[in-house]
């Protein structure tokens, strides 16, 4: 009961006009920053951090600035889906999986369905995660502590396993794509040996590695666009989506069809999110993979299945709430955005850590209360803006295409602030187009670039710990079962293939 009283109290605080206004403003800012390819929650939060001092001066507490930044974080998670669905460019790594089915839906003239599904799934994911957060925060923090290097590596293996079936029909080309992404992920600086590696032609631009967005915007923003331009041939609009409040209401009523994906995404996303170092991206990928595995019509995934939109979208919102947990209770960030939030908390004079909940209840409870409220605001704002996004899709293609190109280029620059990455992005894009013509699937490479930089160091840190003995992944109580499940999932398709061949 204590929790409920504290929560109600916190919600009342969060509902004060000033805090409510901040939450609203934060959600709107986040929505737009998130919808912009290249910019994600991390940019929004980092850029607005200095202004939170002013907010703190006005309100006199650290809660108001945090409510503002958390609202940006939420808004951006909703916004990421918008560019994934309407433009086909994942605005941030957390929204990659949303493109898999969101884009085909948009191309089939069902962008409204995809956007509404994404918004409601995000809301449910966020709210389920909030409930879990409210009820079990301190208990869950100890789970995060039990996740050492071998456990995180096992989890990454599991993430790989869940999307092993995402490639195309051409097996060697899919394998090539996965490995290529994993190799690209090692470019730059090796933290274990402390040496730079794979610095091609000794160009310093490679020393920070091949960033996810450089490849993703190149592949989706440039490569896919060139493909679409070529396929469209004439100046037709991208899709024939009609918009009216009625269709949106209809789609809202049709949402329950995506309950399965939402349920999987909400829970899986939250639990992956609370594990430090994992974050929302693996969470959304795994949710997509699992939703496909348990679906009664897995063959529809990748061609415009609502579960395929609902699962990753509910997961990335659930995971972003989950990632707040280790940040607040352990003082460690589970994602780049929470790293900046953490910096903010420190600057405002708070000490995140195991004692935060007991020593700073005046900070914690209004913040948790605001999580619920921000989610409601984000849902309403998002649904209200859907017609605007649909209108964008109805622009003539010869206007939309150059806009997307400019967005891709400026967005890449804004994300990393150097021209080298922009050149690399465009070159990747042109290369992606040429490979696409020959049926090379590129999504696996994009996903590998996200997971590789987490998986490789964790593998090597674990083996340092065990003196190079691989049994560490099997003998530890948490890592063991995860590794075994992952290996089974990886081998399953292979076994199926052999089985069907043997029967023939």
């Amino acid at each position, binding site marked *: 009961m204590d929790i409920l009283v504290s929560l109600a109290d916190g919600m009342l605080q969060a509902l004060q006009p000033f805090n409510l206004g901040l939450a609203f403003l934060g959600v709107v800012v986040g929505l737009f*920053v998130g919808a912009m390819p290249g*910019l994600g929650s991390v*940019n929004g939060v980092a*850029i607005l951090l200095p202004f939170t001092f002013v907010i703190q001066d006005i309100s006199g507490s650290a809660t108001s600035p945090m409510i503002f930044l958390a609202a940006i974080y939420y808004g951006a998670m909703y916004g990421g889906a918008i560019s994934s669905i309407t433009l086909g460019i994942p605005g941030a790594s957390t929204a990659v999986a949303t493109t898999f089915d969101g884009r085909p839906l948009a191309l089939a003239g069902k962008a409204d369905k995809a956007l509404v599904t994404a918004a409601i799934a995000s809301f449910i994911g966020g709210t389920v995660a909030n409930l879990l957060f409210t009820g079990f925060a301190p208990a869950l923090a100890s789970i995060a502590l039990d996740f050492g290097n071998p456990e995180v590596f096992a989890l990454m293996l599991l993430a790989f396993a869940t999307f092993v079936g995402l490639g195309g029909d*051409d*097996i*060697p*080309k899919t*394998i*090539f794509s996965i*490995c*290529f992404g*994993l*190799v690209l992920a*090692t470019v730059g600086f*090796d933290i*274990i*040996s402390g*040496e*730079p*590696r*794979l610095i*091609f032609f000794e160009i310093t631009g490679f020393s920070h590695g091949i960033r996810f967005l450089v490849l993703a915007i190149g592949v989706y923003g*440039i490569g896919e666009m*060139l493909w679409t*331009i*070529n396929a469209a*041939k004439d*100046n037709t609009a991208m899709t024939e989506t009609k918009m009216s409040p009625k269709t949106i209401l209809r789609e809202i009523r049709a949402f329950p069809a995506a309950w399965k994906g939402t349920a999987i995404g909400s829970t899986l996303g939250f639990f992956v999110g609370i594990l430090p170092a994992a974050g929302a991206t693996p969470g959304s990928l795994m949710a997509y993979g699992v939703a496909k595995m348990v679906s009664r019509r897995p063959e529809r995934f990748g061609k415009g299945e609502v579960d395929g939109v609902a699962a990753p979208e509910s997961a990335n919102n659930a995971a972003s709430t989950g990632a707040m947990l280790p940040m607040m209770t352990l003082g460690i960030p589970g994602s780049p955005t929470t790293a900046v939030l953490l910096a903010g908390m420190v600057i405002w004079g708070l000490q995140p850590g195991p004692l935060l909940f007991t020593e700073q209840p005046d900070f914690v409870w209004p913040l948790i209360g605001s999580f619920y409220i921000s989610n409601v605001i984000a849902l309403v704002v998002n649904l209200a803006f859907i017609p605007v996004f649909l209108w964008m899709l109805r622009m*003539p293609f*010869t*206007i939309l*295409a*150059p*806009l997307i*190109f*400019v967005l891709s*280029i*400026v967005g890449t*620059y*804004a994300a990393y*602030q150097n*021209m080298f990455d*922009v*050149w690399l992005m*465009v070159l990747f894009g*042109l290369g992606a*187009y*040429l*490979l696409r*013509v*020959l*049926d090379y699937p590129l999504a696996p490479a994009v996903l590998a670039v996200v997971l590789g930089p987490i998986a*490789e160091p964790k*593998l*090597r840190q674990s*083996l*340092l710990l065990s*003196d*190079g003995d691989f049994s560490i992944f099997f003998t530890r109580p948490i890592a063991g079962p995860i590794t075994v499940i992952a290996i089974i999932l990886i081998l399953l398709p292979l076994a199926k293939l052999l089985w069907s061949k043997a029967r023939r």
Partner: protein
Amino acid sequence: MRRAEIVTAVLLGLLSIYLMWKSGEGPSWDPDSVRFANIGMIEGEGPGSGFWPFWLSLIMLISCLWTGFNWWRGKTPPSQSDQPYLSQHAKRMLLRVGGSLIVFLALIHVIGVYGAMVVFFVYYLRFLGHHSIPRTVAIAVAVPVFSFFFFDVAMRIVLPKGYLEPLFIPLYDIFL
């Protein structure tokens, strides 16, 4: 398309070999380091720094050989297709659109993002899209202005200005 399939597989195979070669490189400060010393398991430590990229590049090479084998057997759609790899239309599109992107980037170094944006929009909208002059001008002006306020002013992300930088100093005075 059939020829393009094998040419691409060979090129990607060469890329894999280059990546394997590059993975074996030792640290730059140590002229005595031996190439490929880092690709195996180091006793008591686990994989070296080149382990992961080297062996994955090898798998890339193998998958290229596999693609080549499929090509020889004529199993995959591209290896059966008599269509040209890039149609006349696709080639023209690549040259006009892809080429304009390269020019866009090059222009950023000279006249900055905003100047290059204007040139790109005028080229794309007027010459590729055949839009009316008022519409072209409206978009070519509105987007850079909006971008300036969004990125430079609101988000505090300073986009490169190239040689047009002096023109922006008065704007900084007013808005920043």
